[in-house]
């Protein structure tokens, strides 16, 4: 750690400032670097976290792979070639084929699109809900009690059983209303979003409570800023860092939850695969084709691991107390 701070201290105290012994007093370290914006500061801290940078690159590669990959590998994910079923990896099918002869590489990319999309959209929903409730509870004293009791109540719910119940109960209705794929997508995203906003709300509320007492909020209020403007211009930009960190954790959580539901057979239909569903379908064939279990599982784990490391790095980078270490 000390070798990282060395270049900075050389910048701050250039050779000329060192007492040369002819009576010139040391004026102390003079900052010579121009002031830098907060986000550049964050970025320079972030790229010091090797694990987070590697994780970010891996996550971008995975997202690119599942969304751009189908352009390079135009095999259909649903084309059934029953003669080529249960094949191992080969040049024609790099990841092999499943029990109906569908190409596993195409299915993995297609499934990855759904998994990543569910993760991101559910995270956004949970984030918007959590931030809104957190800001309202922290900012308006009257809303604090009821909203925090609501949060406690949601935290006391057994989430996985409730998610299972919600999916089981509403899948048919939504599938009839919006079509099987879109209906299940809406159901998954809503169910995961509605059950994952509580940690964000708590963190944001705590930060808003502290910010509300600061002088700049008082100054803004004293020149007649409306509550809405005050929240949008002064409060929200200052709570962005806990929100960003819980966004990464939210993606990881949503991907795992969706895969778990798919694995329990309560997720997307089998002709519309996600990574969890592919893993679930492959369990029956794990004696013949173990790679079909391992590939989707590896994809889920790698995505979640990289997102978690990303969150770790962001948390360090956005925390000014440990910046510069």
């Amino acid at each position, binding site marked *: 750690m000390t070798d990282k701070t060395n270049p900075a201290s050389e910048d701050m105290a250039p050779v000329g400032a060192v007492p040369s012994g002819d009576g010139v007093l040391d004026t102390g370290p003079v900052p010579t670097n121009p002031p830098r914006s907060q986000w550049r500061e964050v970025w320079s801290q972030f790229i010091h976290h090797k*694990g987070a940078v590697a994780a970010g690159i891996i996550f971008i590669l995975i997202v690119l792979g599942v969304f751009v990959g189908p352009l390079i590998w135009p095999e259909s994910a649903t084309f059934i070639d029953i003669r080529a079923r249960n094949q191992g990896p080969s040049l024609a099918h790099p990841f092999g084929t499943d029990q109906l002869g569908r190409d596993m590489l195409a299915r993995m990319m297609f499934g990855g699109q759904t998994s990543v999309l569910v993760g991101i959209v559910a995270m956004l929903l949970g984030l918007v809900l959590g931030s809104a409730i957190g800001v309202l509870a922290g900012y308006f004293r009257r809303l604090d009690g009821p909203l925090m009791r609501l949060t406690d*109540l949601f935290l006391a719910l057994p989430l*996985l059983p409730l998610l299972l*119940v919600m999916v*089981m109960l509403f899948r048919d209705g939504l599938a009839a209303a919006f079509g099987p794929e879109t209906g299940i997508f809406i159901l998954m995203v809503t169910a995961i979003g509605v059950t994952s906003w509580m940690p964000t709300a708590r963190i944001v509320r705590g930060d808003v409570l502290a910010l509300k007492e600061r002088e700049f909020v008082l100054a803004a209020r004293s020149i007649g800023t409306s509550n809405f403007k005050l929240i949008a211009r002064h409060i929200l930009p200052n709570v962005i860092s806990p929100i960003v960190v819980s966004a990464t954790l939210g993606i*990881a959580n949503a991907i795992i939850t969706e895969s778990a539901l798919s694995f329990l057979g309560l997720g997307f239909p089998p002709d519309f695969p996600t990574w969890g569903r592919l*893993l679930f379908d492959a369990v029956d064939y794990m004696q013949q084709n173990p790679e079909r*279990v391992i590939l989707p599982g590896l994809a889920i784990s790698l995505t979640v691991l990289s997102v978690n*490391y990303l969150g770790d790095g962001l948390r360090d980078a956005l925390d000014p107390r440990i910046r510069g270490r």
Partner: protein
Amino acid sequence: MLSFFIRRLILAVPTLLFIGLAIFLLLDLAPGDPTAQLPLTIPPEVREQIRQSLGLGEPMPIRFWKWMVQFFWVEPQVLIDSIFGTQFSLGDQRVLSWQSRSPVMDIVVQRIPQTLWVVGTAYVVAILIAIPIGIYSAYRQYSIFDNVGTFVSMVGFSVPPFFSGVLVIVIFAVQLGWLPSIYDTTHVVNDWDSFVVQLKQMIMPVMVLALQITAQLSRFMRASMLDNLNQDYVRTARAKGLSEKVVVLVHVLRNSMIPVVTVIALGIPQIFGGAIITEQVFKVNGIGQLLITAIQANDIPMVQTLTFIFAALIVLFNLIADVLYGILDPRIRYD
């Protein structure tokens, strides 16, 4: 302390009632019909009678009230009867499962030992592994051990049990053939050989669960140790000339255990209900598996009762964690 405990206990009652109502409404809103799976040849009036016999004829508030009476009044009486051999609950209607028409609580009592054995053992194993790892990686912060430990616990967070479980089955049961892939709950331990069989079938589910719990607990332990290692009292203890072992393992450890103990208490409800996926992977017929089959069979009384029990456990252990925190840390005052 006592007044705080009583106040929290009273506050828990409306919380639990509200959760019970929320679960009930969610299940009631559902479009599913319990007679939908029956043959179409059943005439409509008979179908209506079947629905009546399942208790579906009444309006919603009355059904909720009846469930509450059965759960909070009749079931405790049954429990007292079974312990003391009394006859309080004779002739009272109990919560019945729609699948088997037998009382839900009887099935739950049958299933709990399997869950407690597997998940409880995993929890104990995880605590025993996580605490030393947390202590050592905090003591040697940024050492190789600490970095490896951070990575392993990140992996433990990120690898979901439905993958790690299936992966160990592929490796140890399919490829190597060392361990059985299915947990046999009818296995009776009566001599050394059957004990070895029991041990073998427990290794995989216990380790898969323990990996997850260890990952979380060791991070907590490490963070809590780091908070304490730089405190003034540690410097004082060292300056007094206490040995390093005493400083770390007595002074720092005891203070660092305070938040960790509450986290352990908060995790206990998971022992009863959280291992749904692991039980499904290893075919352990415990509580989690019971819930899954009940959900798939549209068995509303069973789902309602089980989810309510899980919620009650969460609320109860939240309370216990708060009280433990107050007892262990004299700086915390609930007034």
